[in-house]
């Protein structure tokens, strides 16, 4: 049995290098045990070099359609511990022509595509729901912001280039329970998360909360439409979310109030307008 230990930062490129080398040697999927390094521990090399028990299959060069490569790399950011082994099996079959990319009737590929979708959704939600708080002085030439976010999958690396492109003129940190992304003077880097305390609220947050309350139309209350897109699991890190219960509670009353209020008689100004002398 070969044991392949993957680093926690740069997991996917490392997997790709190993998969290519293993395929070239003809190592069958059943002869590899994939594992992720322990959080702070040194990579375990206990079994490295142990001989493979199964006889090697013919070597394979991994050439795959471009579309497949990007979907596979995305899916590898899923939290499923089986993903490394399953994907190795899939790329071997694809490269040998035993499996057609896109064939959803194949259970393994179907699973991979479903995981790809879940990861893409998670990345999308991270792009949407990260909330920065200013931790430096607003007068600094490059301002500094920080955020704490809890994704479902280990997606910090693929999700961060978006922030680097968008917030190019400021420094920022996004910490998650596993890794932290750090963008300083235009350089993006990743590290193990050390500080798990969310940053303190800043002054602009109060304005955002005002906006959130006032852009809401109580006459159109539709709570399930909100929660399907912004599930409760995200609420604890959203500075506006604690306003929601009260907005829901008072909405019917406010809407009825508008309906019941008698239509009003226009004030004098309107009369003047009507006569054309503003």
């Amino acid at each position, binding site marked *: 049995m070969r044991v392949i230990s993957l680093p926690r930062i740069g997991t996917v490129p490392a997997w790709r290098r190993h998969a290519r080398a293993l395929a070239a040697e003809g190592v069958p999927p059943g002869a590899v045990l994939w594992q992720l390094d322990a959080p702070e521990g040194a990579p375990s090399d206990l079994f490295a070099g142990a001989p493979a028990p199964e006889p090697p299959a013919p070597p394979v060069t991994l050439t795959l359609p471009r579309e497949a490569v990007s979907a596979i790399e995305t899916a590898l950011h899923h939290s499923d511990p089986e993903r490394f082994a399953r994907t190795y099996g899939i790329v071997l079959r694809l490269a040998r022509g035993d499996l057609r990319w896109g064939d959803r009737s194949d259970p393994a590929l179907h699973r991979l595509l479903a995981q790809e979708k879940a990861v893409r959704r998670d990345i999308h939600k991270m792009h949407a729901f990260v909330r*920065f708080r200013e931790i430096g002085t607003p007068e600094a030439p490059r301002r500094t912001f920080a955020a704490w976010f809890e994704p479902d999958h280990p997606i910090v690396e693929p999700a961060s280039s978006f922030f680097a492109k968008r917030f190019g003129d400021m420094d920022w940190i996004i910490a998650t329970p596993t890794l932290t992304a750090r963008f300083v003077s235009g350089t993006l880097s990743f590290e193990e998360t050390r500080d798990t305390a969310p940053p303190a609220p800043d002054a602009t947050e109060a304005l955002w909360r005002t906006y959130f309350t*006032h*852009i809401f139309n109580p006459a159109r209350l539709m709570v399930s439409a909100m929660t399907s897109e912004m599930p409760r699991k995200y609420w604890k890190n959203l500075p506006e979310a604690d306003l929601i219960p009260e*907005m829901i509670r008072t909405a019917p009353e406010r809407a009825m109030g508008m309906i019941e209020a008698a*239509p009003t008689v226009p004030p004098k100004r309107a009369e003047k307008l009507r006569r054309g002398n503003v």
Partner: protein
Amino acid sequence: MVKRTLTDKLAILADAAKYDASCASSGGQRRNSKDGKGLGSAGGSGICHAYTPDGRCISLLKILMTNFCIYDCAYCVNRASSRAERARFTVEEVTRLTIEFYRRNYIEGLFLSSGIIRSPDDTMADMVRIARTLREQENFRGYIHLKTIPDASPELIAEAGIWADRLSINVELPTETALSQLAPEKSARTIRSAMADVKTRREASRERSHRGTRPRAFAPAGQSTQMIVGADAATDGQILGNAASLYGDFRLRRVYYSAFSPIPDASRLLPLKRPPLIREHRLYQADWLMRFYGFEAQEIAPQGGMLDLEIDPKLAWALAHREMFPVDVNRAPRELLLRVPGFGTRSVDRIIAARRHRSLRYEDLLRIGCVLRNAQPFITLPGWSPRALTDSADLRARFAPPPEQLSLF
């Protein structure tokens, strides 16, 4: 008047802006700030950064520059005769709010509209100044949507399109009669000619000159409009017919439908009742069918007709055209597959890609992502035949929900 704080103004001017349905921020020019010399990115599919309990997405900071207005549109909370509280932002205040919200990842950009103060040109000039300040002074590369004022001069519209990703002009009401009754100062002709002007400028901006240089982009994310539904007596057929002509004549990116909602201090001219949310939802579905499924407005709802509120318009069409079904999933052309209830555009693409390799079976459709419960009566393929289901008299009852589930309130 007491001086209002920024918080007070934001409260008043967000309250005043919430009846505009659009919050889209997708498409347009690709930009980013990787060079470290600016802020923001745009051009992908827009992101919804939050949802309010009305189920609406917050993508943009949607505010009015001011809700003072010299016009008196009956449906509008800001009309001259309303007793709503009034406020006005300065250029600096809007700029600051946009930038500070953007830096915290609350928004994709700004959607700015305004009541009409002094004159249409004065108002439009102030809005253009805000957009220009964001672009030139703040190096803002996020999304800007300006709601243009139809009566403003063409030079101002021309400048607006240089700074903004999207321009919109609301047609407001589905018929001209309703517009002249409810918005006496507005004219359908002016609105349409302003749209035509934006369309022409957009086209000109995309043509290369004979030397191959491209002019500056003009409203690269296109133009859109909004129609209020339920404030007048227009039928769904009229509304969709009007939308189809707007899409055709002015190449609009989107038509938004906004269920007329009770507003504080409502006018006597209008129905004070719950907004027709289901009707609005069905109109959006119908609009989708026109844009992506090859349906004509008239097929979905005849001129004087209304949409079925209980079932979606695609299903309603299929039930009324049973002679076209069942469709052979392995043979039918794309246009016909698109008409099958329960088949989305993506499922249809996957069906077509998969059947090139082998004949599809019923079980495959689930993995492809079709909604089989809706599709069953209308399809046939190995592993499934609808038999008499397609023509059964009570087929509609299979889909229509019991009436009490209809209230969204």
